[in-house]
């Protein structure tokens, strides 16, 4: 067991005209459970297949510990991989399925038997060993395909490519806890690909968010929720997604949303230290290859600029704030030190445990921009009324070219009151 290191790994299926995966440099620590989260077609499976060796990356290198495996064939990497649907040798019994990888490696019979029994005990398949694998239910079949990977000694990592797609919703929870249990018992590095945020957030120690072939943020579930480093993360994680409002940073650092001064911009130099920004930063650094740099627009440039410029350059930005951190105010005073916004309430959607206050920003360039607030059930906001909304001071971020560049704090004159 060793950490898995990617060095500027990128992949193109068509010889370089489009990139399924742009240069990624990151380390997967051993014994941790990772979720690889992103929408369909963002490069998740490509990245997984590069790690398992089913694909050789167009550029970059892969290390398992201190052994470079970039060109090592897949069966020598000791990877366990589970696919979207159960892949079984369905004429064989469960026992033969589990023994298959070892028999291919010409293990002695007694050792095969010992390993198969050890793994089946771990997976709870002991009673099923004599059964035809095809007669099992889909969940058990996935467990068997996982077992075929685990049966080898010295498994470097367990890769799961949306393994619960074909499992009944009712069974998904049970399967997920089974997988967690197996991870806890074996301590393998685990990489779990999914496009389902709940699955990712509940399963993983660390979530890697992928968009358009690029890692946009890596972090623990709470970190992704509380401190999105990229607009995509704000949208993709959380329900409903983050509010993104067009805004302007003035010469003095004042942030205005449609003429309404919200607060003051504070750059985030220390942001660059978080995992995702480190990755995108390296993206820009390794992107001296012309073709790749052309695609690495926005993200890389944004962080690069953030590092060198002390203050936040004036110009258009996006203000991002999650609905959970927006509160409609019931008239009266505005608490000091809290950024605020004015918007017209359009509707209140009662969701049971909570309400979603759906509002439209008033006036200026941001006219028509939507602001959603997630508040406790029983909100008194009247549709049609104009209100001030308080924004949680620590949770309002500025994005430029979709990358987080700063934070909004209340203006010195006490909030954003007009």
């Amino acid at each position, binding site marked *: 067991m060793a950490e898995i290191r990617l060095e500027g790994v990128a992949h193109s299926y068509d010889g370089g005209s489009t990139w399924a995966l742009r240069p990624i440099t990151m380390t997967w620590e051993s014994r941790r459970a990772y979720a690889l989260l992103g929408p369909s077609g963002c490069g998740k499976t490509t990245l997984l*297949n590069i790690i398992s060796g089913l694909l050789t990356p167009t550029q970059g290198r892969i290390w398992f510990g201190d052994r470079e495996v970039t060109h090592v*064939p897949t*069966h020598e990497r000791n990877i366990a991989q589970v696919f979207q*649907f159960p892949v079984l*040798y369905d004429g*064989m019994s469960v026992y033969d399925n589990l023994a*298959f*990888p070892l028999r*291919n490696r010409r293990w002695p019979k007694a050792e095969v038997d010992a390993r198969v029994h050890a793994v089946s005990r771990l997976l709870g398949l002991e009673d099923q060993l004599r059964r035809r694998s095809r007669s099992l239910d889909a969940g058990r079949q996935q467990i068997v395909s996982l077992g075929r*990977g685990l049966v080898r000694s010295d498994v470097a990592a367990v890769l799961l490519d949306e393994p619960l797609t074909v499992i009944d919703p009712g069974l998904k929870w049970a399967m997920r806890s089974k997988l967690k249990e197996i991870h806890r018992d074996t301590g393998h590095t685990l990489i779990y690909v999914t496009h389902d945020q709940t699955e990712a957030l509940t399963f993983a120690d660390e979530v890697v968010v992928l968009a358009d072939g690029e890692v946009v943020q890596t972090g623990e579930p709470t970190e992704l929720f509380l401190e999105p480093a990229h607009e995509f993360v704000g949208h993709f994680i959380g329900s409903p997604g983050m509010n993104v409002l067009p805004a302007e940073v003035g010469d003095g650092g004042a942030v205005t949303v449609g003429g309404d001064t919200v607060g003051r911009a504070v750059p985030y130099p220390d942001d660059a230290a978080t995992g995702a920004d480190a990755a995108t930063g390296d993206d820009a650094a390794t992107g001296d290859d012309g073709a790749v740099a052309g695609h690495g627009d926005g993200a890389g440039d944004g962080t690069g600029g953030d590092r060198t410029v002390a203050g936040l350059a004036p110009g258009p930005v996006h203000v991002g704030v999650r609905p959970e951190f927006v509160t409609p105010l019931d008239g009266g005073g505005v608490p000091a030190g809290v950024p605020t916004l004015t918007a017209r309430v359009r509707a209140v959607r009662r969701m049971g445990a909570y309400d979603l206050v759906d509002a439209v920003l008033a006036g200026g360039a941001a006219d028509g921009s939507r602001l959603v607030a997630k508040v406790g059930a029983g909100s008194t906001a009247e549709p049609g009324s104009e209100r001030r909304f308080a924004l949680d001071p620590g949770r309002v971020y500025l994005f430029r070219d979709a990358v987080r560049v700063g934070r909004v704090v209340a203006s010195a004159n006490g909030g954003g009151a007009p």
Partner: protein
Amino acid sequence: MSEVAKPKNNRAWFLVLPVVVSVAFTAVIPLMTVVNFSVQDIFSPDDRVWVGLEWYRTISRDPEVRAAFVRTLLFSAQVLLVEIPLGVAIAVAMPKRGIGVPFALVVVALPLLIPWNVVGTIWQIFARGDIGLGGWVLRRLGVDFNYALDSTDAWVTVLVMDVWHWTPLVVLLAYAGLRSIPDAYYQAARIDGASAWSTFRFIQLPRLRGVLTIAILLRFMDSFMIYTEPFVVTGGGPGNATSFLSILLSKIAVGQFDLGPAGAFSLMYFLVIQVVCFVFFTVLTRTGR
């Protein structure tokens, strides 16, 4: 859901009528005609005698029919033993992607596009020792090859011709079956360190079961009923060497105009094919369940 008032009538029968009529004309009526022949001794349309099952007894005891039956069964068995493995092997070896795919498909499918009697004519000429390329090459290699005189040579010629003509069908079916196997199976095999043979044995072959069942049934039926090609090449000879059931049948029915025995022969022939196909189908779909 709102309940729509539906008038109850038997109009649906009219919709089935076209099928009933066409099946009646293509299958039922001809078959009943044959049944009618098989239980009568017919001298002329006005002069016929009811003989019951007499013709069935005669045909089933006829040594010539029995010999042809064994011969045809042997021929079908050889056809299946050669064409199924060969077809699967070619399908596995065919390119999976790229410009080679359409090229290989066209080359493989060519024999299927040639009319049967033309296939016979091609091979009749090809295998001739004096002017045919195949026969000439064999003779140059020192093989005394003459399908018109030697019964083994005639048998081999017909068998090779059938392999050439019909293996492509097995190839196309197997190739389609192989293409429907998701990539993940091959990827799993690579992860598990499976050899090429193991991949074939445990992934490809089990997944070809369905198409191979169809291929075996089709090839059995067609080879058991083979007529045109051996008729053109050897005419059933030399002697009776390539006189298969269908050739014998047409000799009785058309050559000697013995409609009664020919009718009984046809029905028994039909029944044998039905039974063998049923057995094949049952065995192939039951095993491995």
